[in-house]
């Protein structure tokens, strides 16, 4: 049945009103949505994505949580981060580099701090993590990364040790020299 015939099924007196209602509905939805889009604020969106939820407690211990699983969908665009907080506690995370905002090692650490909600900063003494603040020393293979603003090497593993763990650091370095 043609559209004309379908329309003809309606009571004749109401036909115009009927279509007017739908045209107004469509126009109303379209215009409301267009006007509503004017409120968009990129900074607010960034806040909504990055800000921690009020139900997420701040963790004092950077090794409290582990990121379960690997970002397989990232292909080669990933890097691993291993934090050794004490002789008995460590954590490993594989992060998708496409989701790390920034290209430096410090950005990788910042993303993990954001995910696991612990304090992190860098200053002259190096990387500072957790609460109370502890200084960490970081290595990629046997090379110590003293400047964490250097670019991330995809697929590499950044090992960061609590600077007090001298014996663990030495054991790690000796594993490379062997």
């Amino acid at each position, binding site marked *: 049945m043609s559209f004309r015939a379908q329309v003809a099924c309606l009571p004749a007196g109401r036909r115009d009103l009927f279509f007017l209602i739908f045209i107004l509905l469509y126009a109303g939805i*379209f215009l409301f949505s267009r006007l*509503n889009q004017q409120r968009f604020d990129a900074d607010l969106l960034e806040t*909504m994505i990055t800000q921690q939820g009020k139900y997420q407690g701040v963790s004092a211990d950077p090794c409290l949580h582990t990121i379960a699983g690997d970002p397989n969908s990232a292909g080669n665009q990933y890097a691993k981060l291993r934090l050794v907080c004490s002789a008995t506690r460590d954590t490993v995370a594989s992060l998708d580099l496409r989701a790390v905002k920034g290209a430096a090692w410090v950005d990788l650490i910042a993303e993990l701090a954001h995910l696991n909600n612990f304090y992190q900063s860098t200053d002259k003494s190096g990387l500072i993590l957790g609460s109370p603040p502890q200084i960490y020393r970081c290595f990629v293979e046997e090379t110590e990364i003293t400047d964490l603003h250097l670019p991330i090497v995809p697929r590499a593993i950044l090992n960061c040790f609590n600077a007090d763990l001298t014996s663990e650091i030495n054991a790690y370095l000796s594993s490379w020299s062997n």
Partner: protein
Amino acid sequence: MVKLKYSLIFILLGLILVVAWSLRYRHYDVIPLPGESQDEYSNSWVGLSLIRLGVPVSHTGLAGYQDTDYRYINVDHIYQSTARGLSLSINRPWLDHPPLLGLITGSWSYLRGARVFSDTTAHLVRQPLLIFSLITISLTFWLGAMLFGATTGLLAALLLAVSPIVTVSSRMVQAENGFIISWLLGLIFILYYLRSPRPWLLYLAAMAAAISVWFKLPGIVAVISITIILYQSRHRLAWFTWLHFLLISTLGAASVIFYGLSFGSTFTSVQLANASRTYGLGFDILYKLFTATKITSDKFLTDGLVPAAWLAVFALIHRLPLQRQLQPILIPIFSYLCLYLYLGSGDYGWYHIPFFPFLFLALARYLTYSWSHVRSVFTSFLMLLLPVGISLGKIYGSVSQSGLLSLWKVLIILLSAAFILCFCFQKRPVWLLRGILVAIFSLAAYLSLKYNLMLTPDYWYHAT
């Protein structure tokens, strides 16, 4: 007397709703585990971003978007549990589905103080769905009572209330839990219209059907099924009634296109990408539909009430005198089955949600039919053995031949023996057959309830 009858019906319905609420509220924020279906967050983020930014922003798995922004959003600590380390692909504007469910859960979250994406925890966003579930049960009762009487309505409501698969899937922020409400409402309005053709009832039905599409595009099944029901009744109504309904509801549903088009060309490209999704149901689609049901990507929950209800559907189809009366149940089931088979992007459990009210109405109808036609009690008995057996297997399966299991086995054997004995009599004892029917139904309902109570976070974590 009539007043007493109505009071009793409402008290029973109230009790069923209390049971349903208790079962749904128990562990609602941890079963399914938060993040097992990221659609739950996705939907809620759409609503929250529409409220705060005027633009839908959310996570998507679809192609068709241009500038994907990969992010980690650790809501509910999903990166410590279910997210498998995968970053989320965030898109703006998010147009995978219409925004109505997102607006509901997003508004609820906003009113409860959520302002950023990490605030929309499962604890918060699943709360409106608990209410939705009670509305669905009430509407199923209403539809059943209209079609077959209050007893059938109450039985269907009870089955929906205690079915473990319904309990778990009805908590999830999935659009199917939304459009089933407007679909049932549309059907109820149209049944009233068929009793007394007042135009405003037709308009309300058309509006309800159109709203279904604002939850998810497959909500168009409401328009299709109600149009077919009206077409079947065209001899009793003005001939153009079904066309009138189709025109109004389709034009109403089409409004969602104007929402999408207001965001430019992304809408078209995303819908084209949506249309070219992999057909993921596979060759064992019917087996999956009738037996094990996937709740999330890797969690299954087998509920014997579902296959029993499918058997009831097929049994009812063969009862020719019932067919006309059953059309408002069978037409929705087969309309949605066609859509499910056609769209078929995956065998996720939430795609089954719209079947449940109609399936349980069919099962309830078959049981009440058996009550008055004792020849059918045998079929009902066999049907109900399915949920009894499956629930017993789930509850006591890990305890080899425990005393309790033996007790249940003896009870089932006694019931079966009593049942077979009935057929030895020249004149079958109707009271005994009915007694057995009540006993096996009570057993099925009780064991489903018990199965529900077994669903703890620990059980769920290890469930496969």
